[in-house]
């Protein structure tokens, strides 16, 4: 198979677009982090905290996260099916529409088109567009898989198939709405039902946008970049099926102690505890893959990205199930503990593995090597330090907050007013801004490295063509 038939331009386009939206989302993140300790930084209607925070989560989830997933899924699928796209023009159109969509949808949040359903904030015209984009994506991915030239489906393809199918179900169901006008709709589900559907969606958005796609990358790029074969095929089978089975039962752990019927909460908590097992199945598989040769950690610059990434995933999937337990939820729910948890996943696991995958795939596409391993190492240490500081400060202040809200005086009255609790967060929120800044600087090193690698690669391809 001639490599040049693969439509790498579309893959590269998605990678660059993801990086672009990543920068916008991260800058918005820095600004909202500062607004949390200084209300003076709310610059008028369009850039006030409530709107900008929604903008931050969505641009990063849909722009950086899904953008990178589109690109890398295309790459992995073409490689593993040994086939170029079934419809290359469709993939290119998908790329253009994706960028227009993220831009327009992001702006719509700033002008106040916001359903207030977490991670499903876009109004209905954008939901329709997102479903269309997803179908365009699915046509090429599933089309390639169904007509593949390699009989066996490698693990990554299982996760890709599960992602494509499940996200479609989740997104469509939770976004069912009664449209009132072009800019406004109301959730089809009301009250407790609305809550139940939303968190079934919300938790599985974590599961099928931030877990299964990243595992697909992990299972593909870890063996590729280390040259070590995957430790256990059987373990990957068990963890895959139990993960995708259990995830869907757990949404209500976000609704502990709410008026949602108790049985749904309890069932969700039980499955939540079980989730540790399949999650750690992949963690163990990753560790034992590298166990064949731990010297890779120092000799191969990418190994540490994957191992640290999967370690964050491992920590996340121990912390997550504990948070579902009633007594722990009663302390940390509603506090800054939760953003601490979230960002270990998004910064430590998702972004770490995405960046490493890009570091592997880009040079491979341009038949060259990375511009600078040294810069990649600097990037690694900065994002690692930034992320760890971020989460630790949030955990500390989260527990403090939870405890201050709960504490009662000897006569049974509340010990602290709301404001007394609030102001105690400020030093930690300031440290969080500093941690975020360190992380962003790390990402700038990454971006520089990516752009220089592309330059180098372009020259290289030109040379190869001449020869």
């Amino acid at each position: 198979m001639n490599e040049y038939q693969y439509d790498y331009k579309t893959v590269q386009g998605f990678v660059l677009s993801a990086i672009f939206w990543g920068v916008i989302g991260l800058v918005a993140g820095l600004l909202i982090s500062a607004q949390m300790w200084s209300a003076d930084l709310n610059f008028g209607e369009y850039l006030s905290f409530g709107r900008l925070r929604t903008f931050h989560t969505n641009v990063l989830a849909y722009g950086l996260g899904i953008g990178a997933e589109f690109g890398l899924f295309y790459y992995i699928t073409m490689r593993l099916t040994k086939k170029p796209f079934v419809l290359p023009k469709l993939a290119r159109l998908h790329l253009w529409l994706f960028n227009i969509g993220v831009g327009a949808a992001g702006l719509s949040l700033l002008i106040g088109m916001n359903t207030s359903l977490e991670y499903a904030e876009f109004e209905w015209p954008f939901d329709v567009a997102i479903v269309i984009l997803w179908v365009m994506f699915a046509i090429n991915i599933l089309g390639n898989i169904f007509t593949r030239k390699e009989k066996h489906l490698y693990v990554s393809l299982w996760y890709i198939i599960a992602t494509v199918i499940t996200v479609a179900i989740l997104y469509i169901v939770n976004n069912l709405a009664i449209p009132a006008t072009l800019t406004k709709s109301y959730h089809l589900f009301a009250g407790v039902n609305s809550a139940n559907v939303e968190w079934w969606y919300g938790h599985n958005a974590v599961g099928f946008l931030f877990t299964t796609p990243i595992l697909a990358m992990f299972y593909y790029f870890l063996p590729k970049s280390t040259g070590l074969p995957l430790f256990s095929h059987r373990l990957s089978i068990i963890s895959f099926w139990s993960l995708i089975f259990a995830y869907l039962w757990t949404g209500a752990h976000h609704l502990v102690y709410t008026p949602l019927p108790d049985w749904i909460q309890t069932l969700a908590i039980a499955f939540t505890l079980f989730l540790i097992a399949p999650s750690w199945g992949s963690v163990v598989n990753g560790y034992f893959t590298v166990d064949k040769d731990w010297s890779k950690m120092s000799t191969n610059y990418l190994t540490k990205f994957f191992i640290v990434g999967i370690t964050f995933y491992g920590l996340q999937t121990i912390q997550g199930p504990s948070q579902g337990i009633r007594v722990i939820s009663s302390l940390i729910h509603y506090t800054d503990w939760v953003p601490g948890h979230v960002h270990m996943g998004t910064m430590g696991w998702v972004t770490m593995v995405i960046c490493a995958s890009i570091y592997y795939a880009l040079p491979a596409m341009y038949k060259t090597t990375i511009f600078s391993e040294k810069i990649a190492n600097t990037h690694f240490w900065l994002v690692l330090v930034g992320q760890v500081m971020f989460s630790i400060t949030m955990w500390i202040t989260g527990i403090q907050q939870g405890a201050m809200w709960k504490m009662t005086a000897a006569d049974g009255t509340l010990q602290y007013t709301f404001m007394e609790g609030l102001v105690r967060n400020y030093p930690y929120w300031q440290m969080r801004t500093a941690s975020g800044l360190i992380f962003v600087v790390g990402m700038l090193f990454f971006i520089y490295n990516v752009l220089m690698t592309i330059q180098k690669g372009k020259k290289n391809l030109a040379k190869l063509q001449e020869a």
Partner: protein
Amino acid sequence: MSKNDNSIYNRALLFSIVAAVTVLIGTIATVFVPMFTEGMHPKVDGLKPYTALELAGRDVYQAEGCVNCHSQVIRPLKADVLRYGQYSKAGEYAYDRPFLWGSKRTGPDLARIGGKYPDEWHIQHFESPQAFYPKSNMPPYPWFKEKQVNVKETLARMDALSFPYTEEEAAELEGATELDAMIAYMQVLGTSIAKEALIEIDESMIEAESPVKGDADAIALGKKLYKAECSGCHGQIAEGNIGASLVDYAEFEPLDTDTYITIANGFEGAMPGYAAKFSKEKIWAIVEYINSLK
């Protein structure tokens, strides 16, 4: 890898179907089945659909992303109930599309904000939260008072939700601002069930006279608490704003117990009660601070 040609790992269509069924099982059990049970569609007797003005306010609440900082659901936990009021019942949310329970309390829960403050408090608070709490991180919303509610749009939204409204109610929207709408929404939140005061203080429950009469430390503590929690309504130097001037009040030499009970119980719709939020020592300290104003 798999030697067996018929293995599911060699058959993409079969694999996809099995994967889809696998994810649908939990979905059906925990989302689709409950949807059709009565437990998911309760409604308390006092609950009414939102009026057009209230709905317009709720829409602004969504547009501004207030849900990022405020929850609207009180858990059946002691501290939640003391701080925010009776715990929330499923039947209070029957008209909420979507639910706005939220997942973060950067600011306080708003499930029972209705009637906690007078309208004037909200007017000033949205203009500048920092005027009440200098260290608050809530953004100011000065544009609320300038922006008109779009009447046609709001009525289309009422129709989409099949919420009833009369001609007069529709006419009332004319000229209403987002601020009016938001306040109408705030004031209806949590009011569909009768309010029971958690702790109702009466004379039999407290000392007949301040136990810290004239105590300098108590006055200092009282002053600190006053500045933090009362000055927004009663003025920095207790000169009066939304609430009465407490300097004038002190001139009349009110009974310690009356002042205590006023602070502890508050006035519905005018001033929140502090019985659950402040210990006895703290309330007496504030009483002493007020006494010291004359």
